């Protein structure tokens, strides 16, 4: 009897809740950003890519930086869900759905931002009709679609037992959502055969998603590394991208953990222990990424070949130096210092460190893309002076901010509709602990 009350409490705590006043304000702000982004995109569709600040030199500007950022952040799904699950780590259970929805929303906007960057969306069809199988761009399109489907399935399968709970809680969730829950999972009865099939499917997905996730990041890095340019001409780029992706993904989960914990009062489920564990993961990943950064910058800086030198000087002491050092300190060094100490792995400092990692990572992606394009091995002759510098136009900023807001909006709506912490798994774990 006591246990059933306890399980009822867990269910009540973890059921999706209506937006509070702050939730509504937050959603409205995100919708406003999305609307501004959509308006800017309409302008771009109407007038062409001329509305952007991209030119002969910087042909991949803020859009591709943003794309790389989204791709990076999406890796977290495979880290938290697959890697930790396969390693039989149980403390990550409350974080799996947060990680998965971050992955799905990020990959959705990674795909969209590529279409935005193409200028004319209908030309995406040309990629399928006339694409070359030798091109990393085609590989990227294939692997992103694969990763999206896989992430969606990995989100869906563990949701099935929760859908049963949600269908039962019709009075709390309301009739409209109940319809959706029924459509998605009315067939789930929790029979041993269903549980067996579901467990098997989840295990297969966890095994499959890891190489696919590695592929998506490696192939994205090859978009750059197979192009002969200073800063990109590196055999290290795949590992460099993967380590950076793990870091930013983990940082995003930490931020989301803190926000959901506060917003939905989930202190019982996302405990200080989770922050401590995630803090240790985050500091390890930050150190790993720092190691790859040293490799990426120190080795070319040691040789200082002429075209590399111009690029590196621009980063270390030139036009991009403030942004570069901001990204290094904010994205790696300061979080490492914070997280190395136990006190730094408490919720609030963790939130700050996670936020710094995510913000630093966004600027890092910008620095990977733009300064390199300004320093080609073969400089173009007779181009306009403005092409030697790049600062995104307001349309580019609006679309970028809109896409970032869109990602957060997907996560927000998901948390409104579905339990952000797996209810069924939490109950099972509580039960196992009790036994």
């Amino acid at each position, binding site marked *: 009897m006591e246990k059933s009350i306890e399980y009822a409490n867990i269910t009540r705590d973890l059921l999706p809740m209506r937006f509070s006043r702050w939730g509504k304000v937050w959603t409205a702000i995100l919708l406003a950003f999305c609307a501004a982004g959509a308006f800017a995109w309409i302008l771009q569709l109407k007038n062409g890519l001329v509305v952007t600040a991209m030119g002969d030199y910087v042909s991949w500007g803020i859009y591709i930086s943003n794309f790389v950022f989204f791709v990076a952040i999406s890796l977290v799904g495979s880290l938290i869900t697959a890697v930790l699950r396969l390693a039989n780590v149980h403390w990550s259970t409350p974080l799996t759905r947060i990680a998965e929805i971050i992955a799905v929303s990020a990959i959705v906007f990674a795909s969209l931002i590529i279409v935005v960057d193409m200028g004319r969306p209908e030309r995406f069809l040309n990629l399928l009709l*006339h694409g*070359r*199988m*030798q091109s990393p761009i085609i590989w990227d399109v294939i692997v992103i679609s694969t990763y999206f489907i*896989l992430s969606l399935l990995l989100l869906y399968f563990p949701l099935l037992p929760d859908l049963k709970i949600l269908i039962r809680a019709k009075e709390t969730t309301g009739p409209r959502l109940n319809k959706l829950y029924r459509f998605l999972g009315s067939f*789930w009865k929790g*029979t041993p055969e269903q549980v067996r099939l579901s467990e098997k*499917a989840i295990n297969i997905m966890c095994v499959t998603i890891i190489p696919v996730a590695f592929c998506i990041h490696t192939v994205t890095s090859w978009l750059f590394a197979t192009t002969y340019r200073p800063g990109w001409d590196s055999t290290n780029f795949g590992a460099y991208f993967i380590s950076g992706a793990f870091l930013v993904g983990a940082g995003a989960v930490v931020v989301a953990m803190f926000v959901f914990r506060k917003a939905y009062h989930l202190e019982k489920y996302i405990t200080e222990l989770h922050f401590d564990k995630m803090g240790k993961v985050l500091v390890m990943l930050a150190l790993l990424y720092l190691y790859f950064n040293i490799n990426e910058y120190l080795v070319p800086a040691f040789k200082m070949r002429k075209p590399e030198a111009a690029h590196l000087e621009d980063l270390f002491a030139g036009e991009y130096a403030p942004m570069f050092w901001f990204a290094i300190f904010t994205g790696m060094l300061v979080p490492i210092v914070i997280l190395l100490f136990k006190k730094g792995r408490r919720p609030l400092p963790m939130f700050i460190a996670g936020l710094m990692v995510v913000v630093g990572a966004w600027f890092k992606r910008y620095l990977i893309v733009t300064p390199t394009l300004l320093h080609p091995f073969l400089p173009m002759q007779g181009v306009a002076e403005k092409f030697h510098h790049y600062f995104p136009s307001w349309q580019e900023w609006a679309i970028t901010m809109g896409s970032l807001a869109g990602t957060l909006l997907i996560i927000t709506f998901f948390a409104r509709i579905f339990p952000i912490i797996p209810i069924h798994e939490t109950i099972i774990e509580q039960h196992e602990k009790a036994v």
Partner: protein
Amino acid sequence: MKRLYNYLPVCVCVLALLTIGELTAAQETTKQDSTRNDVLVTVGYHNVNNQWSYLSVHAKAKLNGKFQSVKGAKFHVYLDKDSAGTLVGDLVTDDKGDAVTTLKPSLKDQWKSGTTHTFIALYDGDAHYNASKTEAVVKEARLKVDTAEGRNIVVSVEELKDGAWTPVKAVEIKVAVKRLQSDMPVSDKESFTTDSTGKITAEFKRDGLPGGDKGLLTLIAKVEDNDTYGNLQVEKTVPWGAVLKPVSNFDERSLWAARFKTPVWLLLMEYFIFFSVWSVLIYLVFQIARIKKAGMPG
């Protein structure tokens, strides 16, 4: 006479004033001249393959302690004498201070009238540079290239003397192979000097040099900036190069080829990975159907 003496002081004063005026004017002119720079002009005579000749003019000036090319300087170049009938051409220097003109057929008679000729380059001057006149004297000469056994190149220099071609000794000659960017010396020796027979012999030591699909190389013998003969150059094609059969992989399967020329190994790898992963995805979707079926009553 007495009346003349009365006017003498006035005349002296007028003369003095005129003299002062002239002197001041002369001083002004000198001042103006001193603000203008002198142009250093080099006139070069060039003969290619003993067939066609051209003249080059290079203008430079010393500005702020450094030599700089003079752009847009206008020259009138004459052959032997400064007259309308012997005008070789009116030249204007380019960004590098260079200008070139060929010798017109109308000057053939003038050219045949002697064996030594003077090219006169007149520069009118402008607001920045003083006018100048530069002369270059050249003797008519020719170069001959022949090949001997063992891949030896024999070059001879002859000048026109009393209607006959006479060998010239002590002339410095460079022998090279024509390449795309510059000329490559045929051996480690940079230059050769003609002997009493007016000849030099250079050994060709560039074996294996690519010579296109027929293995042909173009030898060049050059006399450069010679005070007496100017610049002479003669070319000869020899089959001493390595035959280079161009290999085109344009239509082959490669990573950089067109769409339908993807390497087979890459296609196999890609299809293997793609179908392996997507078969798993299809299997997973199929599992949903199985789960659905397993949930049905009965």
